[in-house]
């Protein structure tokens, strides 16, 4: 991956403490999995930033390589990948997501 793209990716991840890369935007998600993660974030009441990967193919493909994660949505907290829709829903069901968003390190088993 070239350096300018890598920098654009890290800069974009750093746009928010809680940063969601999704299809569409929070008010109009264009994929059920993205909608589900937006719903969870709203439910726990955390502010978050988002980026519509459908509008930027270079960043979309670059981020997959950067994170070794082939699908979207991707949720980052403090610059670290928390997971995609399955993991976010799973962590939320176990009450872990709120702690991670609050700044706690994830449990070893999470």
């Amino acid at each position, binding site marked *: 991956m070239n350096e300018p793209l890598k920098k654009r990716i890290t800069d974009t991840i750093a746009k928010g403490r809680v940063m969601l890369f999704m299809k569409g935007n929070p008010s109009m998600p264009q994929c059920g*999995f993205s909608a589900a993660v937006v719903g969870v974030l709203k439910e726990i009441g955390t502010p978050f930033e988002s980026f519509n990967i459908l509008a930027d193919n270079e960043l979309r493909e670059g981020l997959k390589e950067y994170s*070794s*994660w082939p699908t979207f949505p991707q949720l980052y907290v403090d610059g670290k990948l*928390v997971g995609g829709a*399955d993991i976010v829903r799973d*962590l939320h069901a176990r009450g872990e997501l709120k702690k991670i968003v609050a700044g706690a390190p994830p449990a*070893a*088993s999470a």
Partner: protein
Amino acid sequence: MTPDDIKTRIQSALPDAEISVVDTTGGGDHFSATVVSSAFADKGLVDRHRLVYGALGEAMRGSHAPIHALALTTETPEEYRRR
């Protein structure tokens, strides 16, 4: 892509795994998989999913990848027995 194709690929990367794969829409592109393997011990969820995605390789990469969506449950044998 069939559930068996997916199962075979995951199995080759995680030989001990118990795997079940369902084609959730019947369209051959949206799947749901449960993978139970001791390889997941001491790994976080992100790394567990990465192991499975890695096994599927090109089938999940790029805008023309045959797998559009894969809902994943990853557990160790101990976790699976407990639920």
